[in-house]
Every structure is written in structure tokens, then in C-alpha cells.
């Protein structure tokens, strides 16, 4: 133990590349935060009356919630379906989900015009509003995640009594979590049902809630594969390959169902021809479809790829990027035609988003370092490298954020 901590201290003085990236992102983000809260939304964003929602909604909220979907997917698989083999990866997944929702809430504070009124939906109810429902579900689900996460902290401090209480209510808690997630993951799609005349037909469909829900499951599985692979690389953990292979198999099924429904829906609505009509929308549509359907299915349908650690990792990254593109298309690309405005985020918007992603990786690393997230005997390497792990994927995600 002592040996480990001294080496950790020694290495922590080294400024590695990813640590510098992390510091840069935090500094830029903090400066952007200053601009946002001293000069307002107009000065800190490229939002306008024609384009009132930008990447703080598209990426930080829509994608953030989607990327945290592993939490409900995995808890349902382990506790409800009783698939014990998946138990070993449930803690990092819950951690990812919990951090995800905290970061989504943080991002909302930037995007809301009057963030100090964020509690208003608690007492000013409008049950006809999808946003109201999303607000409630996200609040409640974050509470559920905090409780699902709490055993990890309680164990760390050896608080047996509260631990017993949480364990006693675990199953109802998990059921609540799955219901709340189903509701708000799909409702983020329902948000856009009210704008049939504004959203481009390749993305506007009455099935938006179904697609958002299905893709949340796909991304939940992909994120679990992604984060397990990264953790094994950067914390020197043993890779749970059989578990990931199992997730990969389920992912194929979910993506297959999604693909069939997506194209059937386009055909039924008679807008398939738009997918072949060259233009801005068409290119981004095919980028989305290639990343989230064609390439990952082509990879995962080959048993050789599906059983290899690298193959699974690569396919999972594609799925995550693909559905990030999807959310960006629904919330940005699809509106550019009808509003006649090309939106590209301002540097401050990118800096805040970058800071939030960087904070997510850093918090994940800290949690792994100080809390029993992974089974103890598996921690073979000292976990001082958390910042390094931080950031391998920030750059691709960031590139995407500007979509």
C-alpha cells in the first residue's frame, strides 16, 4: 500500500500529454464560464432567435443523458433479468451513469437563461409539457442513481446500517430507475414531436421516442464495452472479455432492430428518396447511418470481431459516435433548413462542453482511485494515472461536438 502511494506521488508530478490537455480544457472552460455568467448567453454562444438551442442542449444534455444509459441497461440486466455474469462491471457502469447525470445537470446551469430557477418545475407543474416530464424524471433518476451508487461510498467508510437499508430497497430502486429511464430517454425524442414543420423529414418521425429509447439501450451497451475496455487498459485491470462478448451479442440484436425500424419508418413515410438527394442533410444522414448502423453491424456480425477485445472496442466507439451524430442531427442539422440559419458553436460553447467532458473523466479516475469501484484484487497497477485515461477520447468527442 505504502509502496503504491509513493510511486503514485512520484508519477503525479509528471506532466504527461493528457494531463496538459486536461489542464488546458479546464482553464479554457473556466474562462468560458466566466464569460457566460458575466456577459450572458448572447455573448457566450452563437444562439439566436432563429436557433435557440445549440450544443449545450444537443451534446451536453441529449448526448449526455444518452451516454449515461448504461446505468439502467446494466442494472436491469443484472438485478431484474438476474444475469450474474454481468455483475462484475455494474459498479463502473453505475458510476458512469451517476457522473453523467451530474454533468448533465451542471451543463443545464449554463444553458438555462435563469439557472437559479431550475427548481421551478418542482412546484410549478405543467403535466402537458414534455420538458416538465423530463425535468422530473431526470431529478428523480439522479436521486435513484445516487442511492444505487451509495453502497460504494458506504462500503468505503464501513457504514453498515445505511448499507443495510439501501440493500433492502435495491430491487424497487432498480425498477424505479428502469421506469424513469425508459420515460425520459424516450421523452428526449418526444420533445421534438411538436415541430413537424421545422424538423427535416429524415429525422422527424412519430417514432422519435422509440428511436431515442432503443438507441439509448444500444449506447448504454456500447458505453459499457467502451468504458470497461478503457479501464482495463488504463488501470491495468483484467479485461472481462466474456462479459463484453455477451454485451456485443446483445448490441447486434438492438442495432438490428433499430436499423430495421429506422428504414421501415423512412419508407413508410415516403421520405427514403430524401436520403438519396445530395445535399447537406443527406451527407450528415449517411454519416450517422454509417457510424451507428452499417459499420458496427458489419463488424459485429463477424464472429472473429465480436470475440476480440479490440474489435468490440472499435465497434462500441463507432456506435457511440454514430448516435452522438444522430442526436446532433435531430437537434441541429435537422433545423438548419427550416430556420435558414447555419449554426456552429462559439468557442465558449465548445470550451464549456470540453471542460464538462474532461471533468467527467477526471471524476471517474478519482472515484476509481478512492472508492471500491473495481474488485480489489484486480487493481494491479497503481491508479495514479487517472488523468491520462482521461482523455483518449476527448478529441474525437470534441470534434463531434461541433457537428
Amino acid at each position, binding site marked *: 500500500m505504502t509502496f503504491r502511494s509513493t510511486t503514485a506521488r512520484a508519477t503525479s508530478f509528471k506532466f504527461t500529454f493528457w494531463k496538459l490537455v486536461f489542464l488546458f480544457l479546464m482553464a479554457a472552460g473556466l474562462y468560458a464560464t466566466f464569460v457566460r*455568467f*458575466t*456577459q*450572458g*448567453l*448572447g*455573448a457566450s454562444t452563437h*444562439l*439566436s*432567435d*432563429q436557433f*435557440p*438551442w445549440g450544443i449545450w442542449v444537443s451534446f451536453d444534455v441529449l448526448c449526455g443523458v444518452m451516454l449515461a444509459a448504461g446505468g439502467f441497461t446494466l442494472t*436491469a440486466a443484472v*438485478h*431484474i*433479468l*438476474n444475469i450474474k455474469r454481468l455483475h462484475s462491471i455494474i459498479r463502473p457502469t453505475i458510476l458512469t451513469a451517476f457522473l453523467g447525470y451530474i454533468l448533465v445537470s451542471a451543463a443545464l446551469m449554463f*444553458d*438555462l*437563461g*435563469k*439557472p437559479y*430557477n*431550475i427548481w*421551478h*418545475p418542482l412546484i*410549478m*407543474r*405543467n*403535466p*402537458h*409539457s*414534455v*420538458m*416538465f*416530464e423530463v*425535468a422530473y424524471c431526470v431529478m428523480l433518476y439522479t436521486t435513484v442513481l445516487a442511492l444505487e451508487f451509495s453502497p460504494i461510498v458506504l462500503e468505503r467508510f464501513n457504514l453498515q446500517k445505511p448499507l443495510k437499508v439501501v440493500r433492502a430497497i435495491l*430491487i424497487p430502486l432498480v*425498477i424505479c430507475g*428502469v*421506469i424513469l429511464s*425508459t*420515460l425520459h430517454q*424516450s*421523452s428526449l425524442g*418526444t*420533445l421534438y*414531436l*411538436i*415541430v*413537424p*414543420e*421545422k424538423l427535416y423529414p429524415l429525422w422527424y418521425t*412519430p417514432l422519435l*421516442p422509440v428511436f431515442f429509447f432503443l438507441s439509448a439501450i444500444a449506447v448504454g451497451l456500447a458505453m459499457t464495452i467502451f468504458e470497461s475496455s478503457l479501464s482495463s487498459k488504463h488501470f491495468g485491470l483484467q479485461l472481462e472479455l466474456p462479459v463484453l462478448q455477451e454485451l456485443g451479442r446483445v448490441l447486434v440484436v438492438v442495432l438490428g432492430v433499430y436499423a430495421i425500424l429506422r428504414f421501415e419508418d423512412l419508407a413508410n413515410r415516403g421520405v427514403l428518396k430524401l436520403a438519396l438527394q445530395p445535399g447537406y442533410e443527406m451527407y450528415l444522414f449517411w454519416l450517422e447511418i454509417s457510424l451507428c448502423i452499417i459499420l458496427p453491424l458489419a463488424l459485429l456480425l463477424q464472429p472473429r470481431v465480436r470475440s476480440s477485445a479490440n474489435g468490440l472496442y472499435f465497434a462500441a466507439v463507432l456506435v457511440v459516435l454514430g448516435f452522438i451524430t444522430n442526436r446532433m442531427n435531430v437537434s441541429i442539422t435537422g433545423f438548419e433548413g427550416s*430556420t435558414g440559419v447555419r449554426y456552429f458553436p462559439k468557442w465558449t460553447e465548445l470550451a464549456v462542453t470540453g471542460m464538462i467532458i474532461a471533468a467527467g473523466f477526471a471524476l471517474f479516475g478519482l472515484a476509481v482511485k478512492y472508492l471500491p469501484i473495481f474488485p480489489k484484487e484486480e487493481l494491479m497497477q497503481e491508479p495514479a494515472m487517472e488523468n491520462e485515461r482521461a482523455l483518449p477520447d476527448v478529441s474525437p468527442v470534441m470534434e463531434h461536438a461541433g457537428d
Partner: protein
Amino acid sequence: MSKALLYDSTVCIGCKQCEQACAGQNKLPYDDAIAAEEIQSAHKMTVVLTRGEKFMRRLCMNCNDPSCASVCPVGALQKTALGPVTYDASKCMGCRYCMVACPFSVPKYEWGKLVPKVQKCTMCPDRVAQGKPTACAEICPTGATKFGERDELIAEARKRLRDNPSNYVDHIYGLEEVGGTSVLLLSAVPFETFGYRSNLSKDPMPMLTYRVLSHIPDFVPLGGMVLGGIWWITHRREEVALAEAPKPAVDNKNKNGRKA
């Protein structure tokens, strides 16, 4: 019962007194520079557009079943029985879903302010409540903007279309769009010329989301029961498997021991 505005663009002379009266009523600045702006904004709730010799007003349509009021999570926007769609800035948290949802893209935001509000024409709710016409209708020198009962104004608009069919496009904009609005428009040229959408449904937009939302009260108990049921089955299966597993390995004696 419900009040409305009828704007007949063939009578309008483009004097923009409605813009000025609106600014005065809503305590917004108004000068020549603002008069020249041809776009609705946080400081200009109504605008008279000019295309050649034709004019057209743009203002909040004050829909009968407004998207903005339906999507607002805190109920800051409300449809009143008299017609106006009002806004309460103290409730608003600034999510701007109303701006995204509005089929007429009416609500505007004070992007430059640290404590921003949504701004839109609210059809002078205080004046209407006192039985007075809106500021724009009161000032209009030609009667192009007319205030009155919605039913009577519809009859009036139909009469004008019937009496002078060659003067008008045969359409009362706002009669059926998104389930009807409290602002009715008549025009000599197609409404698209002035940016009015022609692809709007005749059904109120809020049904599109409410159709989905209304299933939630059924979904929650049903989902709970299904998930609980699956949990019960999978764990029961495990108990049974545990109870039966040692049977072939050792003797029957162990079976009971395991159960405890």
C-alpha cells in the same frame, strides 16, 4: 366569447403606428432605426413587413391551443379565456423550449441580458380584460387591424372575401392553422411571401406530444408490474436451481440443507 384581431393587409397603408403603439404599451424603445427593422425581436413584438406595395403584420398569433403554453415546463405561458397568451417572466427558467416549439417562431429572447426574458406580443391582456381593444387596433388609422369577438371577425372576414374575391387570396390565415388562432389575417398575395408557413396542420400541435405523454400514467404501474414479475421469475428460477442442484452430486439429504 374569445377576443381576436383581424388584420386586413389590403387596407393597411404601412404607417407603422401599430408598431409604435405596441412599443409604448410594452414599455419598449421605439425610434426610426427600430421602425426600419423588419424582423420581430426581443424589443419589437410586432412588425409591419413591406414587399413592394404590399404590407403584412407579423405578431404573436395567440393560438387557441398554443404550443408554447403546452411545452412550458413551469406554465409561464398561459392561454387565457379571453384570447391572449400571456407570459410570466418570474416563473420562466429560460429553457427556450417555447421558441423551439412555436410553429410561427414568435417568442424571442433577450440574449444580451444577464436576467433574460422571453418577449412576445401577449395581445394586451390588461386592456382586453378591461374590455378595451389592443393598443395596435386602437391606434390603427384605417381599421386594417380590427379588434373584436373572434366569431364576429371570422364572419366579417368571410364577408370581405365574398364581396371582393379579386382583392384577396381566398384564405383566412389563422382560421384553421394549428387549430385556429386569435389573430386572423387577410392578404392580397400568398402568405408565404411574408414568411407565413403554408404547411401547418389543422390540428392543434400540443396533441402531438400529449398523445405520447398521456400514456405515462398507464405505463408506470404496468412497467413496474412487468419488471417486478420478471424479477420474481428469474430469482425464483435461481432458488429452484439452487435447491435442485446438489441432488445428483450428493444425496437427497443435502437438498433440505441448502434450502435453509
